[in-house]
């Protein structure tokens, strides 16, 4: 056994910071034009780069529509490969018997004839390119321009990662709806004042509250937990694989702790309390695999910061580290690491694993697998 393994365990926790420098890379999916310069101040919705993606293609069965053989198509074309066409414009015509039989094929879109095939008798009309824009997402300053691709925007502010989310990027003013991190967010707490806001709850959001928030036009919700079946009912389907961010339920939802009723970490809750009324950006996109993406809330601010907030926490579990247990038994409990034994220990399942001895908040001392704890930043 290596010495480093015996006294030190790497278990990344979620980032919860009252202050940090947040840098966001904002890139186009294909090359395009960057619309801002280095040093520019940008807001959440500033468009920083734009490009055009090829328009929608339409495959037209022209030979069949005209009632001709594919190889004869060339005799009846009014427009050829590369020609520009308008929506509804006739692009091929078959006329015979002095006009008694007159069959036409019209373009379903404005665009360009991309291909004509005398093998299949079909034509491809490509619609006009469509613009794709990338917004700044957070307010801050452009610190770097990546030519033809995008920019890096930097801000100073608070940063809270959640464990799972649905829905994409949005922004709004922070509004805290509960008194404590263990309170349940109920439907009667939601009113018209929630419109356009990011709502903060405690340990759980009920299905009724979630539906009411959507109805009243809230932009986002951050809460400790949700029941799996409630989420499924609102999303409309069961989420199979943990790649999210594209759901369209009317708002973005982030859970910070897990599924079921689970009090939001006090540190995160306190940050939201402190910055109530501030405008924040949030993104529910989650991907749990290599290169884990967790959902996040960014609250740009210029408040005073303490010296200690600038110190980066060492990412390691040591005796004294505050941790949360993230698997049964003791799931969700918070405690302090007392001891990290070198030897492997046999747990209830009979597996031999590396463990940690943790003193829970109620004073109990328990042994848990090191794989089942995560650091909580103090």
């Amino acid at each position, binding site marked *: 056994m290596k010495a480093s393994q015996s006294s030190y365990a790497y278990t990344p926790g979620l980032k919860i910071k009252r202050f940090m420098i947040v840098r966001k890379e904002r890139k186009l999916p294909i090359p395009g034009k960057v619309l801002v310069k280095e040093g520019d101040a940008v807001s959440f919705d500033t468009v920083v780069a734009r490009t055009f993606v090829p328009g929608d293609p339409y495959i037209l069965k022209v030979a069949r529509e005209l009632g001709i053989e594919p190889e004869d198509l060339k005799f009846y074309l009014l427009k050829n490969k590369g020609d520009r066409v308008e929506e509804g414009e006739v692009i091929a015509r078959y006329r015979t018997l002095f006009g008694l039989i007159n069959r036409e094929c019209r373009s379903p879109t404005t665009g360009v004839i991309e291909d004509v095939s005398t*093998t299949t008798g079909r034509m491809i009309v490509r619609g006009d390119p469509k613009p794709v824009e990338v917004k700044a997402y957070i307010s801050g300053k452009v610190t770097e321009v990546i030519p033809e691709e995008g920019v890096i925007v930097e801000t100073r502010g608070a940063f809270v990662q959640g464990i799972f989310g649905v829905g994409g990027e949005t922004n709004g003013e922070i509004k805290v709806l509960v008194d404590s991190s263990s309170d349940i967010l109920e439907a009667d707490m939601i009113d018209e004042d929630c419109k356009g806001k990011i709502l903060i709850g405690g340990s759980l959001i009920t299905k009724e509250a979630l539906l009411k928030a959507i109805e009243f036009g809230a932009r986002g919700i951050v809460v400790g937990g949700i029941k799996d079946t409630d989420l499924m009912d609102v999303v409309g389907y069961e989420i199979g694989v943990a790649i999210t961010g594209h759901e369209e339920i009317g708002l973005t939802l982030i859970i910070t702790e897990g599924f079921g009723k689970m009090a939001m970490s006090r540190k995160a809750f306190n940050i939201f309390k402190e910055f109530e009324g501030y405008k924040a950006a949030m993104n529910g996109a989650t991907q749990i695999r290599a290169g884990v993406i967790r959902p996040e809330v960014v609250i740009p601010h210029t408040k005073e910061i303490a010296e200690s907030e600038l110190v980066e926490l060492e990412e390691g579990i040591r005796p004294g580290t505050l941790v949360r247990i993230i698997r049964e038994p003791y799931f969700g409990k918070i405690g302090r690491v007392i001891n990290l034994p070198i030897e492997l220990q046999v747990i209830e399942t009979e597996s031999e694993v590396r463990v940690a001895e943790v003193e829970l908040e109620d004073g109990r001392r328990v042994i848990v697998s090191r794989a089942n704890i995560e650091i909580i930043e103090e």
Partner: protein
Amino acid sequence: MPKIPLDQMKFILATDVGSTTTKARFFKKTENGWRYVISGEAPTTVEKPYEDVTLGVRNAVREVEELTGHKLLAPGGKGILMPSRSNEGVDLYVTTSSAGGGLQMMVAGLIRSMTAESAERAALGAGAIVMDVIAIDDGREIYQKIERIRHLRPDMVLLAGGTDGGNLKDVVEMAEILKAAQPKPRFGISYKLPIVYAGNRDARNHIKELLGEVFALTIVDNLRPTLEEENTEPARRSIHELFMEHVMAHAPGYDKLMKWTDVPIMPTPAGEGMMMQLIAKVFNCNVLGVGLGGATTNIYSIYDGKFVRSVSANLGMSYSICNVMKEAGIENIMRWLPFEKSEDDIRNRLRNKMIRPTTIPQTLEELMIEHAVAREAIRLGFEHHKTLARPLRGARRKGTLWEGAEISDVFALEEVYGTYIKMINVKIIAGTGGLLSHAPRRVQSMLVLTDGFRPEGVTRMFQDSVFMMPHLGVLSTVHSQAAWEIFDKDCLVRLGTIIAPKGTGKPGEKVLDFKIEMPDGATIKDSINFGEMKRIELPEKVEADAFLDPTSHFDLGEGPGKVVEAKVYGGVVGIVIDARGRPLNLPEDDKERRKKLLEWFEALNAYPKEFLDKIREEWL
């Protein structure tokens, strides 16, 4: 190719760059042949902020260095030290990779059950994850197909269609759809997406004209030259070459890694598949295998010499655990639990495993829940596999119901087109993957494999000791002797033999009289009734003679009620006699079902007795 002659090699290093972890395995030639020495593991570094896969490889290899004192890394990040000298360097370095989601392909053909299915088999056989299969009769309108293709970002496309000299128009139409959709590659925004064309050779010029400019087009022999013939090898080879040239070359750090290795990098499942084929070759029988991972479930069959691999990309034990719940239905997971829990509780537990996939079960309850999911993942993966492991559709076969059968004769078609895998003819089942390797008692993996695959007759069961089948798979391409020696001695755990009569009966009805003659001369004579399981100790590498006399409703391969004499092979579990019947049906009544599960777990000594007693007290 290797620079050192095979017979002069002393040390070999193999790595697998997985989606989350890079795993190094170090091998050494000893007086007793090639042996596994030690493992090193480190997080994969394909994504930000590292974006250089060789960092993870170096970290994993460094762990091997630290544990063995054998220096392996060349100074200055220049790869692996070669050749070996006393306590430094290796003579061969090979690697597999599934990082960044492995090789992801889109497949297109004409008829879903004919050329498109052949193309799917070719892509899967090459180690790819098939993102979608586009076919003329896939039930989607042209605009829906285009929309779907535009959304996918595959690493590569395989286009098939038409027999040689046959349908031309439809395959060109399919190419037009591809051209119109213009799918973009996953890595890099500026390079051309590779397309392999393996369809009607008469359409090649049209395909070149249509796709040659926009895509990196490769043309190979038709994978379905006639309806009676499937030739996936040229397409498979081309996919492997393109995987290296295009996909790997654009993935972060692979340009470096490709220079470090002695042989081309192989997709992880392709390596796994090679070992499954080796098992079939060495033991000369039909084999079923499973790679039960965190994200995917790969099923392999080598049946009457035909190799088929299927990958269920979203069935897995961590990252994809909730998709197993979705596909199987929560009730099918809960039926394997001997205790009562609310559906909400199980759902939330599985969701919490999904969002924190590196956690491990600490309680026996949690362990049983994961084992329940594993059974369903294998069952579903195998169901999927069976839709690919079937005779070529469209082929006319003499002596089958096809001749003279009307096309509308559904029953005839079922008979002709169902899977060709008959469980009674499968003689070995092998498993690999974290859940199986980490099961605290090996009998738990044997039971999971049994309930997932439902073997019939007499079947041997194997499993991977520590995950190294992919490593040995790629090694076998250059040094088959070393690969086999390590596989045989250090990788392949013989679990034992399962004896499972086919047929059903009433609870308590006699199923089988059996006599097992042990090598020491002792004889075990017993019988078993319907709904029971029994376990008989028989150590690894020990054989016994079994005389199996089933009652008239039960079949062990020779027909109902016919005596079977067979060699049974021992293992860490031994012999398991499974008289629960095939098809395997669990009792409908919850209490009865829980009672039976507890009985079986106890008979097999699958979980600690005190725990089973506690459940019995609480729930029965």
